[in-house]
């Protein structure tokens, strides 16, 4: 397999073709913040927090790209921290903080970029629509019990056709990948969050890990979580 040589924050690195900038940076121990990224899932590139500057070969100007989806290229020069990057990330975090003022994780990350309050009218979401729960349910669990519904401002995570999904096995994987604790296992059972299991569906264990529940505190018998 071909290897690619590039520079990240002035450090040389050689990685296999197809590696993303984010993966290469992590090999060097460079931290790039992410919200919608998970090692086990295909890259998605929606939260834009992981933006870095890249400059290819002789190009004079650098451009901002999402490091989680951008594959490395020969001779690429990557900067993971600069005034411009910090400014754009801060701008994005102001938006997310306004969307989810109650989220501890968003507040902490925003704080790192000097954003302690938002200039916009706050809303009361917890979900940042990063799609991790949707993707893990599809790519890992294989249940496809939830997906995005609607568009733009109305975008939301829902079970197909907005009815309880018969395919949900209540494995709870969506709750473990959620970066803002917006998905709660109780709610999977109780419907209100939307992506809900059918009440008559018997709980199953995760098809991938199989033998044990995804989080130790989860009950052995998921039936207990269903409303009686």
């Amino acid at each position, binding site marked *: 397999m071909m290897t690619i040589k590039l520079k990240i924050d002035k450090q040389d690195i050689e990685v296999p073709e197809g590696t993303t900038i984010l993966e290469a940076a992590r090999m060097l121990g460079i931290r790039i913040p992410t919200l919608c990224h998970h090692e086990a899932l295909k890259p998605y590139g*929606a939260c834009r927090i992981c*933006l870095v500057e890249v400059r290819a070969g002789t190009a004079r100007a650098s451009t901002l790209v999402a490091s989680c989806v951008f594959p490395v290229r020969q001779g690429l020069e990557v900067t993971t921290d600069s005034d411009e990057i910090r400014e754009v990330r801060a*701008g994005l975090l102001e938006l*997310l903080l306004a969307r989810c003022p109650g989220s501890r994780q968003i507040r902490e990350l925003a704080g790192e970029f000097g954003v302690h309050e938002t200039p916009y009218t706050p809303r009361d979401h917890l979900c940042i629509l990063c799609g991790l729960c949707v993707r893990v349910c599809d790519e890992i669990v294989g249940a496809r019990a939830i997906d995005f519904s609607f568009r*733009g401002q109305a*975008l939301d995570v829902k079970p197909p056709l907005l009815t309880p999904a018969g395919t949900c096995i209540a494995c709870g994987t969506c709750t473990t990948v959620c970066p803002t604790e917006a998905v709660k296992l109780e709610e999977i059972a109780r419907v209100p969050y939307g992506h809900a299991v059918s009440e008559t569906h018997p709980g199953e264990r995760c098809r991938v890990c199989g033998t044990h529940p995804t989080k130790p505190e989860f009950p052995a018998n998921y039936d207990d979580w269903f409303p009686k």
Partner: protein
Amino acid sequence: MKTCRTHLLLCAGTGCVSNGAFEVMRSLEEEIKRHNLTEEVSIVATGCNGFCERGPTMVVQPDGIFYQRLTVDKVPHLVEEHFLKGRPVKELMYTEAKGRPPVPRMNDIEFFRHQVLIALRNRGRIDPEKIDEYIANDGYAGLARILKEMSPEEVISQIKKSGLRGRGGAGFPTGMKWEFARRSAADLKYIVCNADEGDPGAFMDRSILEADPHSVLEGMLIGAYAIGASRGFIYIREEYPLAVERIKRAIRAAEEYGLLGERIFGAAFDFSLRVVRGAGAFVCGEETALMASIEGKMGRPRPRPPFPAESGLWGCPTNINNVETWSNVPVIILRGADWYSSIGTPSSKGTKVFSVVGKVENTGLVEVPMGITLRKIIFDIGGGIPGGKRFKAVQTGGPSGGCIPENKLDLEVDYEQLAEAGAIMGSGGLIVMDEDTCMVDLARYFLAFLEDESCGKCVPCREGLQRMHEILDDITEGRGTMDHLVLLERLANTVKKASLCALGSTAPNPVLTTLRYFRDEYESHINEGRCPAGVCKALIRFSIDPEACTGCTACRKVCPTDCIAGERKQPHKIDPDRCIKCGACHEVCKFNAVRKT
């Protein structure tokens, strides 16, 4: 084929049809029959002629006489005078202004005189539903040439040499795009025609598909041969029923003639085409969202790379070009890259089709060489601003384009010059605005459109546009502060830099350009609580000047909330608390007594 002494080329584009072109056609047929002229005069329903403002239009060939604003009741007179007695009817000809002499011939009319037709070469000349008429005008000759004489590499090098750039908006060199797709090794490759024209007020692609569908098919066939694709899709908006019908008919005709299918022209080249109708999402004009939509998934963009040339439809190498790009291709092959590249500017070759709309005398579709000035398009071809009003700005490139002010009207239109001015070529919408347009309100309007059309996948576009819209609401409703302006500019830059696809990264253009060229209007809204153009309802007040008011009661009668009081022949008064600022009194007053401040 029947030979007639006179051919009536009646425009049957969407604009003229909605103004009654088909009724006019039926009436023409009846009259011609009545006068026993059916053997001598033939009627051809053509695609959009471009001069939509004057529709329904008709060109009489071979004399080239142009008739406009035809109505059913004028037809009997026209047929009798012109087609029976041979006396062209002056009253139905175009005049530049009242009292000026009529201009009988189409090519002498200012609107047509400055145009150079390449993509629209057959508009108003052929019946788009008859493949023979396209073939009679050199149609499919380019395809025949490449299949008999040229290798795919030679085709690509011709297109590269011509300097053709993508007409969908981004302006990427077409030849290079083809070369990438050619180099991707795969058993199956796809060609896509992007006909998801979603910009409000833009109808270039629709008109090409309606007027000359075979030019698009031929372009796609040439592209397919060049990159080695065997299957193709035309992704077209469901809102374009006539274009959908014509392209489907064109595909059927081409299949019957063996121009689509297996072993085309006896060469080892197979190609089949399918039409996919879009459900009306603006974002599906973005190529990755478009591909997702063809695949039957939600129309949401994905990050590039991988580019479609490497991994497109169902993972196969795919080449996507816009309608106008495709229709340019056959002419380049036939007349040569050198001829094509002799038109235009050093960086942008050939012509561009623009739909000129808004506050302009001659609304319509024009094709002009690159490098023409905006002034020439708007004032010479477009005929200037109606009603003696002053020009204020022109928005190029659709909702995510930029507003260009008067002092930049001499800018020579090409991809680079427009980008430098903060605007984009886009797909070719030109919206002209006069002094009555509020630039802050305009920015808000376009932003609201894009916010609505955002797919919601990435944070900057979904959350950012919503917040920019909120800020503009505050400014236009009188709650704005100077801090808002700083925040707006900062946020616009964040959205521009951080968005996943071109919808988000160009969405702030209307805001950024109006802030750049019309900052004073924003400041008037904020600092003086005044909308200089008198558009933003929250900031305007209607009052009656007692000196000028004659007490005619016209305003009182028209007011929907009965908030105007006053006796006959006495000055009237508006109750500001109950006034909903609809402006009806302002419009109806003959004495200029209703003041808008």
